């Protein structure tokens, strides 16, 4: 971990009562700060609670929310809920995989894009939906995937990623 990351983890641990039940809350807080859970952070958390790193890792890997590699600059989430699926969500996901050359859960080598699928974000009226860094792109189609990526690329070149974080 970098110096900043170590400090962020310490800050989270200091603000939390040392009760085993807060484990998930702590992991959430660390991920909120760092964007992912580095292995060293998991070790720190284990020391904090006096439990084994395996137990912490076991809990962290059980829940879908936690990730162990940093996200891309643009984190693309394709909704695969029932409504999105029935409106062609799989074709949209395929299009992203094809265009970016990565699979779900992966990050492009330049760390610009990461791709993820999610169960349902509750925007079923706008299906199929894609969320990029919190911004919702409604009624997606495979064709619109290229448009979205072109837009993100342009924003990246302008250095404009104000939606992030």
């Amino acid at each position, binding site marked *: 971990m970098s110096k900043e990351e170590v400090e962020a983890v310490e800050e989270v641990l200091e603000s939390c009562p040392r009760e085993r039940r807060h484990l998930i809350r702590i992991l959430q807080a660390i991920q909120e700060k760092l964007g992912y859970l580095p292995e060293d952070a998991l070790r720190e958390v284990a020391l904090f609670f006096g439990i084994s790193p395996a137990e912490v890792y076991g809990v962290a890997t059980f829940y879908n929310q936690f990730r162990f590699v940093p996200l891309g600059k643009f984190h693309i989430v394709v909704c695969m809920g029932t409504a999105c699926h029935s409106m062609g969500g799989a074709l949209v996901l395929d*299009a992203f995989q094809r265009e970016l050359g990565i699979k779900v859960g992966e990050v492009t080598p330049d760390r610009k894009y990461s791709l993820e699928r999610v169960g349902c974000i509750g925007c079923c009226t706008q299906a199929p939906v894609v969320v990029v860094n919190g911004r919702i792109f409604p009624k997606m189609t495979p064709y619109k995937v290229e448009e979205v990526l072109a837009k993100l690329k342009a924003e990246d070149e302008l250095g404009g990623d104000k939606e992030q974080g």
Partner: protein
Amino acid sequence: MNWEEIKSRAEAKWSALEEAPLHIRIGTPTCGRAAGALETLRIFRERLQREGLDVPLTEVGCMGLCFAEPLVIISKPESGFPPICYKNVRFDEAQKLINDFILGDDPCLEIALGTVELGQDDAPVIPELERFEIERRLVLKNCGWIDPEDIDHYIARGGYSALRDVLLGKDPEQVIAEIGQAGLRGRGGAGFLTSRKWASCRRQKSEPKYLICNADEGDPGAFMDRVVLESDPHSVIEGMIIAGYAIGAAKGFIYTRMEYPLVIERLQKALEQARAYGLLGEDIFGSGFSFDIEVIRGAGAFICGESTAMTYSIEGKRGMPRVRPPRSVERGLWGQPTVVNNVKTLALVTRIMEMGPDEFREIGTRSSPGTAVFALAGKVKQIGLCEVPMGTTLRQVIFEVGGGVPEGKEFKAVQIGGPAGGCVGEEALDLPVDFDSFRAAGAIMGSGGMIVLDNSNCMVETARFFLDFLSREDCGKCSFGRLGIKQLLMILEDITAGRGKEGDIELLEGLCEDLLQGCLCNLGRTAPNPVLTTLRYFRSEYEAHIRERRCPALVCRDLIAYFILPEKCEKGCDHCVLTCPTEAIVTDERTRKKRILQDKCVKCGTCLEVCPPEYSAVIKVSPPEKVKELESREA
């Protein structure tokens, strides 16, 4: 401040709004925001400020009319109209409303959805919409009408008075008896009698006891609990305090999803406001009863909606269900007696205490009294939330409340009860919605998600989709769950990919039976439902996939091909050629007509999407060999 002061101040605040010469309500729940409600709010706010108008602008929750969002309700008594509800209010509509109605006197009825009046149970209704003839809103009574972030609105509409009556005038056994008399069954899906659950928890000797509100709404396509918590959090909080009193708990948890940030934000605000008024915490209403609530954020695991898994998750562990008995009411959170109730169950507890058990019992059917809240999504015109008395038929819900399937499509099936529910077809449409009829039809009531499917949805692929979801979300503890669901999924993948063989259907049926018998928890035991119900209502589709390698709905990618009809292809247009991601479309040099190179085509459907509607030259065929037939016809 004592209760009388709190209440009269809240009432004064509310009636000031009601009687104001102008009052604007804008719905800003998550679904409204996705449709652009925050932008609408900003437009109104800025414009009113620029005009120097001091008009109260209230952010309200969701009325359930998601198809019409962003939704704006304007009350202007001097216009002679009751409050008017406007649909899809974006930039142009907002400017028009301000210019013509707020500054002028034209009510802009052409963009109105209808007028709003307070109907039965004091719930806002829009009489112009057919759905309100069927709906009865108990859980949704305040949704879309009050500011969920202002406890005074809730109190002015009668909130927390029932709690006061309970704490000062009834003993816990009496509360349980009244809930029993009302016949309330848990709205989480299984339909267990709430009073029985409460009574058996109360009987336990061990202390402390806990109450958990299950707001872990993980079913894709379901958003009832989100809407209730975003639009009227206090009705759930009040229900929780009543429940806590009845079972003898001093601490409650609301377990919700991290995917619902607005729910968490609004709940925290609501809890703070309730604490500030002394409605939560020590010695509530001077009754000697103390109760507090903590919000727990889930971490994205569907299985945690199962009550034993949920208790482990609150303890900070992996959320894996355990064998029951002992039930949670005997040994739940930290081994202590625990009641787990759904969001809507708790909101109904508040209503029952307000209206009395006998009046509640008269709504709905004998075995399932009260109302049911459904989230309607998929191929239906009026996507959104509704609340109907139990016993209403599925047909009424889909066609009268939901407005039916969009033009040009045909109703095929409705998927009810979440991923582990079932898909029922046309012949089940006259089923009354209640716990027992659904079970008889092979589905489960579930928590209330309802996805309408039309003839462009393949039922085998739909079953595959749900099993895929369930196998990802399976916790891995019992072997029938871990391997059985996976095997079901693999067989379905084979069938949808054209690798199905004779005997697969029987294999599926046998395996489903094994899962029903062998799985440890209800997630596993209900996992066969999507397969069993699609087999029951749409068996011929399975047979077409297996025997003819054909997908009748033209969905399964390995069983279809795209084809450009030469007679419809317009020569000069190059839309498909330019957009095809794999350059699979070629132009005939002589005729300029387009043709798809089948071995390069990835079947993404872009050509079908971009082909101008006046040509509609791209079609899908199944089985793929049909292309050769069509091509030879040309030759």
